[in-house]
């Protein structure tokens, strides 16, 4: 069958099970777009900024497990993808980005809208390709999808020069992938699993540290089995949230810089950490030399390079979390760890990190707690980055597996709008709440138009404090209240703005209005935007200052330091 390069791309995408793509056309990718009408099974969602395409693809992947597809034209279209690709690279999420490139003859000549995007994205992709021969298109796309979703997932970019789209050649789709330098280890090594089991069986104070790998491998049942079988408390990293139900008695929540005190303390006092797809990021460990001083570490990860990168490991175990746990669990003896679990319960009572303050002001914590209560912890929750993100991690009680979408590693503000879009496209029947900061929201709000166009009933809650709240908090704590460039005095009227897009919207200024506002939003059929006017002086606690150990933890101060 002879096909054009453009048709080959579409045929290949269909064979990879793609049905949705996010993108914006432009000169170099136009011949590809002009074939879409021949393939109605490929739905293209026209975004307003290519950054939104990459992040929507990311959100889509996170909730569905299907590789997200982003498309952009050459030059500025492609460079606009970069932040989204870097976000995906840091959080190990599978995206395939297809970019148009100037024609082969023009490459390297500074042609109009030319950019060396494979060069630019080298450090922010798992792998990338510049296709220079039409016969390579099917193989490259097959490899791109395989690389993106297998092993430790990540973004892959495929750059295709414009003239390849219109050339013709025989279309042969390869059945298998042959990449001699790539073969992720999925099954754990038996003798390492035995060692792990014996450490777990002899531990007195074990904890499970469940990370994004547990979510990505969909090991929800296995994490629960392991925890319940040996009564091991479960600590979830920021990206590990929703790998274990937070309604469970063994759930401790998030540790680290803004984690709950008892989770950080449990890590500190543990004699064994069973790490499931977590990478001991600095936000979790704090000062490495005093991190978990008494703990042995079983480090289970699909990526060998994160094992031993930050902490010393007694049992390195390379493999897919789900597969490793399935082999490991039968070797773990039932246990109740009564004293240890009891001790943690006492810490929970003595260090109540999540107590809402008796305060008349409208606080983000209060709103998020209410959203959690009213949605019964069952919504898909998307956030941006900063205070509202940390409070959502703390105060939303996630009861459903894989229901949390946030930019953890890169910490990308503005993620909340396009990622929510991708999540709602991927899960049309789920309730999607996007918790936004007023700063991040203004970085990507242009995609409200996309949301309206595609009738996506996302519920936006803007935590409007007229500040870059987390930056303000650091200026307050570490820079003597010098609030340089953090106040947003020129915010638009978000309600009018939403109305201009045709989105149902209202403002909340009082605590007493919160319940009704959330319920109204839930009852409305389409997208809703609530502008919550929140207290700008609230700080996120607990806080372990950067580079410090859990010993330096600052829990909620009894009196807020005055800063004005």
């Amino acid at each position, binding site marked *: 069958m002879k096909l054009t390069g453009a048709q080959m791309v579409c045929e290949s995408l269909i064979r990879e099970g793609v049905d949705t793509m996010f993108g914006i056309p432009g000169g170099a990718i136009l011949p590809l777009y002009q074939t879409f009408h021949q393939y109605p099974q490929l739905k293209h969602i026209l975004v307003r900024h290519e950054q939104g395409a990459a992040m929507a693809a990311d959100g889509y992947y996170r909730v569905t497990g299907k590789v997200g597809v982003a498309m952009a034209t050459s030059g500025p279209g492609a460079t606009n993808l970069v932040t989204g690709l870097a976000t995906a690279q840091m959080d190990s999420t599978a995206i395939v980005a297809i970019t148009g490139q100037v024609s082969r003859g023009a490459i390297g000549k500074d042609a109009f809208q030319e950019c060396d995007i494979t060069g630019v994205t*080298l450090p922010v992709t798992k792998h990338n390709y510049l296709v220079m021969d039409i016969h390579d298109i099917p193989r490259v796309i097959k490899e791109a999808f395989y690389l993106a979703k297998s092993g430790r997932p990540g973004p892959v970019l495929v750059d295709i020069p414009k003239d390849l789209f219109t050339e013709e050649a025989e279309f042969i789709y390869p059945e*298998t*992938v*042959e990449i*001699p*330098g790539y*073969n992720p280890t999925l099954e754990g*090594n038996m003798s390492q699993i035995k060692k792990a089991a014996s450490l777990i069986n002899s531990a007195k104070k074990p904890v499970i540290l469940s990370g994004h790998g547990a979510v990505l491998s969909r090991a929800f049942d296995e994490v629960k089995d392991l925890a319940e079988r040996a009564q091991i408390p479960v600590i979830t990293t920021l990206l590990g949230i929703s790998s274990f139900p937070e309604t469970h008695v063994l759930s401790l929540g998030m540790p680290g810089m803004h984690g709950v005190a008892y989770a950080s303390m449990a890590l500190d006092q543990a004699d064994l950490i069973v790490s499931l797809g977590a990478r001991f990021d600095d936000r979790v460990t704090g000062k490495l030399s005093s991190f978990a001083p008494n703990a042995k570490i079983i480090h289970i990860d699909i990526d060998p*390079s994160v094992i031993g990168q930050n902490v010393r490991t007694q049992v*390195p175990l390379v493999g897919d979390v789900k597969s490793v746990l399935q082999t490991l669990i039968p070797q773990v003896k039932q246990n109740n760890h009564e004293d240890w679990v009891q001790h943690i319960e006492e810490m929970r009572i003595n260090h109540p990190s999540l107590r809402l303050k008796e305060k008349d002001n409208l606080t983000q914590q209060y709103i998020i707690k209410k959203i959690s209560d009213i949605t019964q912890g069952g919504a898909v929750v998307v956030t941006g980055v900063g205070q509202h993100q940390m409070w959502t991690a703390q105060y939303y009680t996630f009861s459903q597996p894989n229901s949390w979408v946030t930019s953890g590693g890169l910490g990308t503000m503005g993620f909340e709008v396009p990622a929510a879009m991708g999540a709602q496209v991927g899960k049309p029947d789920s309730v999607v709440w996007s918790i936004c900061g007023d700063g991040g929201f203004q970085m990507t709000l242009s995609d409200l138009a996309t949301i309206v166009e595609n009738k996506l009933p996302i519920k936006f809650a803007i935590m409007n404090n007229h500040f870059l709240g987390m930056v303000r908090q650091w200026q307050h704590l570490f820079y003597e209240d010098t609030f340089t460039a953090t106040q947003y005095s020129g915010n638009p009227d978000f309600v009018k703005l939403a109305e201009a897009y045709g989105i149902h919207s209202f403002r909340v200024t009082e605590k007493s209005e919160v319940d009704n506002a959330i319920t109204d939003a839930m009852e409305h059929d389409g997208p809703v935007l609530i502008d919550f006017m929140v207290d700008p002086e609230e700080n996120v606690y607990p806080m372990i200052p950067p580079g410090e150990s859990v010993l330096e933890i600052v829990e909620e101060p009894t009196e807020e330091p005055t800063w004005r």
Partner: protein
Amino acid sequence: MAIGEHTLVALVLHQPGVLNRISGMFRRRGFNISSLTVGQSESEDLARMTFVVQGDDATVEQVTKQLYKLVDVVRVTDLDEDNSIVREMALVKVSATNQNRSEIIQISEIFRSKIVDVGAETVVIEITGDQSKIDRFIILLQPFGIREVMRTGAVAMSRGNAVTAQIDNNVSGASRVNNRPKDYDQNL
């Protein structure tokens, strides 16, 4: 091996951009390499690279893992110093006069190097050996006035039957070939 120099040899896909991927990884992860050489291997679609990396065992372990993480890297071997041959070539252009030319030639002979060009005021010498031999040679020539030094960086190979960074062809039937050493994941 503790802190010091390690010689790593990698078998990589011989295609455009592979050098950029590897050198970019060294740069962004902050690894120090004192030399990097690349050239065709015995197989047309594979190249062999030799890196001389500075660091302790943990650093070399990370370098190896990060190399393996690159899709184009097929196999990495950390060479055992005692069981490998490491060679570097250098061209050294040194000032020479009628008075001292024979002295320079004498030194060159001691080092078993070759005079490849003799000009009115200069001599170009080709020398092959391990790094320390070339270092010592250059030091000895310094009093004559060194005009230019061009070094290739080290290439290395293990002694005897062992083939350095070899593709494992014993795994047949599988759609993908796992070319990591069998005990790789357990000896992290």
